[in-house]
C-alpha cells in the first residue's frame, strides 16, 4: 500500500492523522480513495495539487503510477522564477 504523509491543515481533514496507508494504482485513484476514507480530503488536495512521490516533487501528477512501497507527500504548489 502507498504510504501517504499529510502536511499541516490536511491532517485536520483526516482526523488528525499524519500518515495513511492506502491501496491505490495512481495518484488520481489515491485521491478517490482518500475521499472515500475521509470525505473532503481528496478534494482538498485536488484543488492545489503538488505531490512528491518517493522524494520527487511533481505537478500534473494525477496519472502517475503508485506502487506498494510508494511514499507520497502532498504539498502546496510552488512557483519558480
Amino acid at each position, binding site marked *: 500500500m502507498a504510504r501517504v504523509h499529510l502536511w*499541516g491543515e490536511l491532517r485536520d481533514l483526516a482526523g488528525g492523522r499524519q500518515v495513511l496507508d492506502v491501496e491505490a494504482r495512481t495518484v488520481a485513484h489515491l485521491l478517490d480513495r482518500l475521499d472515500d476514507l475521509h470525505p473532503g480530503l481528496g478534494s482538498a488536495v485536488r484543488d492545489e495539487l503538488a505531490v512528491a512521490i*518517493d*522524494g*520527487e516533487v511533481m505537478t*500534473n501528477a494525477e496519472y502517475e503510477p503508485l506502487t506498494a512501497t510508494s*511514499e507520497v*507527500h502532498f504539498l502546496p504548489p*510552488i*512557483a519558480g*522564477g
Partner: protein
Amino acid sequence: MTTEAPSYKWVGTRSVRPDGFDKVTGRARFGADRHLPGMLIGVVVRSPHAHALIRSVDTSAAAVMPGVKAVITSADLPEISSEEAMSGESVVDYRDLSHNVLARGKVLYVDHPVAAIAATSRRAAEAAAAAVVVEYDVLPHVLTVDEAMAPDAPILHPDQRTVGAVEPSDEPSNIAKRRWFGRGDTEAGFAACDVVIEREFTTRPVHQGYIEPHAVVASTDTDGRSEVWCSSQGHFLVRSQTAKVLGWDPSRLRVIPAEIGGGFGGKTTIYLEPLAVLLSAKSGRPVKLVMDRNEVFMASGPAPGARLRVKIGATSDGDLVAATAWMAFEAGAFKGSPVGAAVQTVFAPYDIPHVDIEGFDVVVNTPKVAAYRAPGAPIAAFATESVLDELAHALGIDPIDLRLRNAVEEGVESTYGPTFRRIGFKETLEAIRDHPHYAAPLGPNQGRGVASGFWFNAGLDSSATVSIHEDGTASVLTGSPDIGGSRASMALMAAEELGIDPTDVRPSIVDTDSIGFTDVTGGSRVTFATGMAVVEACRDIVTTLRTRAATMWGVDIDAVEWVEGRAQMRSGDRPPLSIAEIATASGKTGGPIAATASLTARGVGVAFSTQVCDVEVDPETGIVSVVRYTTAQDAGRAIHPSYVEGQMQGGVVQGIGWALNEAYVYDTEGRMENPSFLDYRMPVASDVPMIDTVIVEVPNPGHPYGVRGVGEVGIVPPLAAIANAIADATGARIRDLPMSPPRVVAELAALGSVDGQGPPLG
C-alpha cells in the same frame, strides 16, 4: 543513468553563445521592436487610488477624440467565476487574473488598470486617456501585513475567507490562506536545548528589475484569430492565460516569442496581452502596448514584503533540535504570495527533528506580487541563516561547521516532508570552507558572513524538434524562451548526442503553432527539462541516421554504430558515412530526417548554494561595500559552465541589491515614491566585486547528463550572508531590510558606535 566521471566532447565546454552576434549588433528583436503597417499605439488608464469602488467609467468623450480607434473597459471582458487552476507551475485564479488585467467594480492598488485606449499616436492615446472620466468612492487602504491583519482592517475582497484557518470563520479576511507544516514536539525539543535564539525580521517589496519593460503587439484578423508578439518567459502561458481572460479558445491565438531582456520570474504572467488583442479586435488594426518604467514598477508584480519570526534551538555540541517559524507574506492585491514555498524552504537545508512552521498569505493594496527567482526562499533564508549565525557565535562553533553538522543529505527526511534523493549541499559547504577566501585576512571595518540556501527545481512539459539538413548541420526548435543562455545549452547537448560541432547546431525558439506545448522558462527548468526533450529527439535522430546508413550499405542496423558524427560499420568493411552524406541521400532512403520529443520531465532534482562574503562598513556614512564574494552551487552537471557561473553571479548581485538598497517606498496614499531606476537603487557593475564561483557537480541521477537547475538558488543566501558580514564587522544585527546607509547608521548608533546623525531612515 548518469555516470560520475563521464568523458564528454562538448558538454561542459564554453562555446560561443548562439544569440551573441544578434545582440551585440542590435539585430535581436525584443518585445517593443515589432512594427506593423497601420499599427496603433495603446495606453492604459490607471487608478490614482490604492483602494476605491468604481462608481462609473465614462469613455464617451475619449472615444470620439481625434485618432482614437478603440476604447475598452472591463465590460469588454467576460466575467469569470473564481476558479483556481494550475497554470504552468503556479496556481492561478482566473477571476483574479482578469480583474488584475482590468479592474472590475473596485481598484485595489495605485495604477490598477481601469481602461485602455488605442489611437494613431501615443499623444492621441494619452490625450484620450486623460479624457476618460472615472468616478471613485475612495476606501481606506492597507499596505503591509501588519495593517492588513489588524482586527479592524479594511477588507479588499468581501468574499474572501481564510483557507486553512485554525478556527474557520465566515467573516471576510485579508488572510487568504494559512499554511502549516510540523513534525515532532517543538516544546519538548526546545526544552532539551542548551541555546535557543528567537528573532523577528521584516522585508519590503523588491522588483526583479528586468531592463526590458513589458511589451506586446497584437494583430487580430477579421476571422477572429490573433497573432501576438511579446516578450515573456512562456508564450504558451501567454496564450492560455490570454485566451482564458478573453473567453477565447486558445487556438485563436498564435503567440510569437520575442527576444527577452530579463524576466527573473516577473514575466510568468500577463498584463498587457489581452488588452492588445481586444483593442486590435475592436479597431481592426494592429496595436502595440509598451509599459514605461513607472508602470513596470507600479503595475507589474514585485516580490513581496514580509514579516517573520524564527526560533532555533541547539545543544551545546551544535545539534539543531527544534525550530519554529511564523511568517506573513504580502500577496499584493490578489491572493498568491510565495508563502507556500517559504514554509517549505525555511528550514529545508537542515535535519531538525522538531519543527513547526506557520505561514500566512495576506492581500494588501499594492500590485499583485509575481515570481522573483526562488520566490519566497530568500526571505525565509534571511531569517533562518541569520539566526543560525547567532547560534554559531553563541555556541562558539564555526558557522560552516555548524551547518555541516546539521546539513541534510541523501536519505534524510526534509522538513517539508519528502526524503532527499542525491543532493550536494554538504559539498557546497565544504567548497566554501576549503576556499582561500574563507581564511583570507580581513581589513579594518570589514567583516565576513556565510549563508546557505535551498530551492526546488521544476520539471513540467517541454517539446523539441530536431532536423538534419543536407549539409550535415542541425536545427533545434524549442518553445522555451532563452533568458539565461539555454540556446547554448541546447546546442551543446545536441552536438554531444549527434557528434557534430556545436556551431553546426542552430537553436531557435519558435511560436505556439510551430512546436508542441512547452511550459514556462521558470523554476530553473529549461536546461533540465527542455534539454531532456532535445536529448530524446537527438537519440531518435541517431537511430534514424544509423537506419539510413544501414539501408545505404544494405546491412542490418545492428551492424552500424554512430561515432563522432559518422555512421560506421562495426566490421570496418566500408568507409564511414558522414551525417551530411546520409542527409543528402535521405530522399532515397526514407525521406527527411527529423524527430520531435514532447515529454513531462520527471527526475527533477533540488538545488543548494553556500556563499561567503566580505563587507566593509563605513561607520560614519553607513555605506556597506561588498569587497569580496564567493559562491558555491551544486549544478549537477554544468552543460555550459560560463552560463552556470553567470546565473550564480546574477543571483548574488540581485541578492546584494535586495540586501543593501532595494525597497518599494510608499507614501501615505499608497503611491510608490521611487518608481524609477534613479530612486530605486539597483546595483550596477561598479557596486559589486567580481563574484567568484565554485561549480559543485553532484550529478542528478534523473537527467541524462546529471543536470540540476541553476537559475534561482543563487539569490537565496545573499541577504543573510551580507547581514552576517555586517554583524561581524560592526556587532550590529540588522533584521529589517534593506540595510541601507540610514539603517546601518541607526543600528550603529543604537550600539553606541556612532553619533547617529546620519540621514533619516527611508
